[in-house]
């Protein structure tokens, strides 16, 4: 494409039907005052 370059392919749909609940609860990580989940790893993948 001439005008647009996709730098990240669609990724959210890949995980739409999972949800094992094994990943970290977000606020437990570092912030303790707010929530950012997008930077978290999927526990299944990191195993």
């Amino acid at each position: 494409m001439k005008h647009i370059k996709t730098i990240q392919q669609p990724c959210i749909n890949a995980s739409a039907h999972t949800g094992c609940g094994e990943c970290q609860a977000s606020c437990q990580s570092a912030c303790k005052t707010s929530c950012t989940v997008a930077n978290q790893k999927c526990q299944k993948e990191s195993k």
Partner: protein
Amino acid sequence: MIHAFRFQNYYLALDVESGAVHSMDEQAYEVVRALEEGRPLESLPYPKEEVGEIVAELNSLHDAGAFEAEELVPPEGTGGQVIKAMCMHMAHDCNLRCKYCFADTGEFHGARMLMPEKVAYAALDFLIAHSGKRHNLEVDLFGGEPLMNWDVVKKTVAYGRELEKKHDKRINFTITTNCVALDDEKIDFINREMHNVVLSLDGRREIHDALRPTANGKGSFDLIAPRAQELVRRRGDKEHYVRGTFTNRNLDFTNDVKALREMGFEQISLEPVVLPDESPYAIRAEHVETVLAEYDKLASFLLSERKAGRWFNFFHFMVDLAGGPCLKKRVSGCGAGAEYVAVSPDGDIFPCHQFVGEAEWKMGSVLSGEFNTGMQQDFLSCNILTKPECRACWAKYFCSGGCAANAWKYNGDIRKPYRATCEFEKKRTECALGIFAAERES
């Protein structure tokens, strides 16, 4: 839903529902903006053929599910009613008198108190009993200052290790400490037993000392900095964060990140203070623009440092686009009151550490075993699908609906996000995506 934005010299667009990110030229960016805002494309100052080309590119992205993708709904029920994470308030007491402390200088609106061993054990028993089939559990040893109850901290970990074996679970312990009481023995124990460590340090000495004095009013920087450095040096690659707070006194917080870098720290998090508007340190509406501009500055600093081979990580600019959490997690957020609870030193249960001591939010007690599942349901159903502002927000899958405690404190409703933190979250997400784009293309 599309969010087009600029970051440095980049023109970027996030396709919200698919998570695709596109980098484009200025013309394409203007076309996307016009489409977003419902302006006629004829009003753009570009040749018709060029606009036509861009529209064709967007159409093919749409066909590939990467532009204006449909909203997805995660599976029901897999989050369930289990509790898998717990914040244990080991001490409602502190050896510092931080001016912005949400725990009201360690007292949490009540008397100073250390969590007795009996309560700590009951809390872990409660967690195991409510954890269902979850294997990975998390326990954060929090305060006040947890090192003030060190003996019970050690016993709690030992008891947790027994429970792991007995119930085939894994408990990942985290400790959050102000570092004042750290010594060799504690550092080694923490590095051995804790999955993660959060060290509270605000950055520049003068900033830190002004807001984090000791009980006798002296600065605490010189007490803390060498201990924190020693812990991190011995810890190696294991997870940790140096976590600071910024207030309206240091809206130029990039300088605090720089100070932490100069001290050798690589894993850094700085958070806006959460205080009512009348507090002298509060971040108020009039500060928002300054904070947003400062995040841009920080992003530039991070990029230039990394480019020069001086890698470091800023918690809120970290984003894992491809391998991030599943949709279910993105929708349900922090899990407060649902799969995450906090326990006060006397054994009362609250939705999270920010609610501890607020009588109306008491959910139960680990001693009596009672637990308000109705309140748990309320929190479970408070997510980005049910909060209209969040559902319509482009940052929803990165933010996951913000902080229920902030929403309640500022707007009196856990479902009404607090606007200033939304602005910060959106800016940080733009910076994170911008950094991703910049590092990919360099």
